[in-house]
């Protein structure tokens, strides 16, 4: 009797859960079912809109040609480096800032927080413009400063190696608020009682961080990192496009830029879709890592 009751109670819980999630899921299916399908479907065709509006089925040819292209690996390496560097920087600095910010009381937190947040919400174009205004060889502010103070100028976007780091710096500046906000919200939602209990037990700040805050925030850590890493492979396009256009040469050539070029410049939808599938696969690997972390620690 109790078992049946518990089972049907369990089912009711399921249904409530589904009802809660239903509107969201319905919207997502409506918006994404076709694009996801389109992406995979088109990768098996050759569709170059300048040539003809009819697509021709070519099976795996798109994949073969990309895998044989050395530029594919170049773009992949650039993007991976970018993802690692920027996510690491943003994570560490973001965490530090979030911890610091959480200790501030009153209106100052709002003001400082607001100041920190602006970079992320500016339009992509302005980010790119800011990047140019800071790092450009001629009109760049940073070189003007260093030149007048120390007499040196840095090849921010003109050197092969430094160009990628410049993109990392600009992206970190832009997306740091993302980590700060998410970490901050997680920190402040830790119930005060637990913190007070720890204080009563005589825990130092470091111990608090290690035993209270970090376990608490692991789910948030994981999702934020995964999302930013995925973004690096799929979305970080505007900044690169405006500041370096993949240059000098191919030094900052990244996957989203390639896809943009293929899809919206040359209108090679087949190849663009194939690149998209590759970005998808890489992101899936990241997602798998996320699920693994989640399983282990939750």
């Amino acid at each position, binding site marked *: 009797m109790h078992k049946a009751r518990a089972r049907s109670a369990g089912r009711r819980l399921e249904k409530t859960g589904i009802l809660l999630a239903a509107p969201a899921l319905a919207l997502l299916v409506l918006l994404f079912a076709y694009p996801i399908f389109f992406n995979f479907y088109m990768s098996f065709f050759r569709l170059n809109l300048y040539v003809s509006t009819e697509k021709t089925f070519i099976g795996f040819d798109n994949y073969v040609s990309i895998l044989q292209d050395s530029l594919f690996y170049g773009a992949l390496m650039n993007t991976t480096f970018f993802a690692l560097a920027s996510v690491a920087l943003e994570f560490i600095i973001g965490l530090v800032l979030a911890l610091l910010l959480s200790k501030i009381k009153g209106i100052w937190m709002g003001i400082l927080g607001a100041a920190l947040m602006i970079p992320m919400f500016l339009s992509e174009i302005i980010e790119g413009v800011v990047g140019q205004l800071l790092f450009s060889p001629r009109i760049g502010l940073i070189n003007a400063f260093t030149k007048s103070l120390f007499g040196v100028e840095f090849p921010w976007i003109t050197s092969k190696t430094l160009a990628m780091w410049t993109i990392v710096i600009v992206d970190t500046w832009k997306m740091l608020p993302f980590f700060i906000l998410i970490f901050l919200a997680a920190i402040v939602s830790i119930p005060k009682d637990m913190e007070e209990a*720890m204080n009563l037990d005589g825990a130092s700040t470091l111990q608090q961080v290690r035993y209270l805050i970090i376990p608490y925030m692991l789910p948030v850590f994981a999702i934020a990192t995964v999302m930013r890493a995925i973004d690096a492979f799929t979305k970080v396009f505007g900044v690169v496009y405006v500041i370096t256009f993949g240059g000098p040469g191919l030094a900052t050539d990244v996957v989203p830029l390639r896809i943009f070029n293929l899809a919206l410049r040359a209108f090679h939808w087949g190849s663009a879709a194939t690149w998209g599938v590759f970005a998808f696969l890489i992101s899936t690997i990241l997602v798998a890592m996320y699920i693994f972390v989640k399983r282990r620690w939750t």
Partner: protein
Amino acid sequence: MKSYINHSNIFISRGRDMKKSTMGMISTPILIVLIVGVAVVAFVSAWYLKPAPPPPAPERPKEIVLTYLCEAGPEPEVMLKAFDKYSDLHPDVRFDPDVTPRDIARMKVMSEITEKRGTYDIYFTWLQDTLWMADAGAIDPLDKYIQNISSYLEKYPDFLLTSIQKDGHTYSLPVYWNSLCMFYRTDLFEDSAEKAAFKAKYGYDLRPPETWQEWIDTAEFFTRPPDLYGYCINGKAWAFYWDEYGVSGLQSAGLSPFADFENNRVNINGTAGVELLETLAELTKYSPPGWEAGDWFTFGDQLFAEGKLAMWHNWYYPWPTFQNPEKSNVVGKVGVSVTPSVSEEGPHMGQLSGGGITISAISSEWDRQAAAEFIIWLLKPENQKELALTGELFIPANLDILEDPDVNAFLKPQPFIELVQTRGQTFFRPSVELNEVQNLWVSESAEALMKIVRGEMTAKEAADWLATHMEKVLRERA
């Protein structure tokens, strides 16, 4: 220290809750299927129940709205002033302009062509795109609506007309055109002391360079850092390709057409092609620092206007800026010459660029009619003249207008026209296929230059590397 987080996952529900539940009958998997199914069905039905196009109106609507697609930029936007004027004169016709960034405009055109929905009535179409759009069925021939269009176009130069005419039909009304040329400092090149010094050093007379060797020599001669450099190579990939390398370099090397679409071969790694890359790489030595990230707008144009460059090769558009005392230190000191070539005989080729108004083939009949009337109005010389006087970058296509003294004074196109008519600067118009694939080797050509400059490869190796990539792109085309 024990963890303060409880990881229990079990809920305990109470009697009160069970009474309030009403979902006893439906099981969970069915619920999920229902929700997903509804979403998919909604979407699919919307997809298939496309609204039918409205039947053609029997008589002309009282008010016609012409939707205009154009890219953001001075040339297309000059049309906006024409629209206002026309609407003042003909209150029953309004215009709805859609000014979008270039890449998005391209996407919208593509979407129009593939979907055939008729969102736009008129386009501002670049010359090199006109015939391709005609082939794709996107635009209607103008002579369908304008009976004696050839009489209007008598005064238009031939090189413009061949871009827009096919099989006896005219597809576009050209409103503006432009090409590449070499700006140079007359005060430097015509100074007698400089001339003497140059002759002493190089053994021939100083003149704006007409061959690549002359280009290198003059650039070297005039490189006197930090205030003067001989030339400025564009480092940004798109600027490099669409100025020095692909569009004028390869053509002036005599390699045109450099892409063979039948056999998927390119000829850019032969002697002339390698020499071109060597020349351009050599010129980077005489370019101001920071050239690696420079492009026309933020770098080259500014530097030349400040007087820091002896030569600058670009499209003709910055000429008015160079003559503007507020923005330029070289007013009155700028001459215009041809694109240097592989040899004395030429070809000195720059790409012809320009745009015109075209009528969409997909919009409604009355809209097309109204658009044609607008174009006829636009073709009248007095309107062309007025347009020329509004925009600083507007080189009208009608040669008579160009020779009008007011227009002449305003635009000062003379050096450029003279160049075209006397010095043999010719124009190259890319084929549609070339237009498409060029986008796929822009970054790589800049990379080839970088490889040579960094010493990673010789010019021949870089040319081979680039050629391999280009041929791969060609193979993967249709």
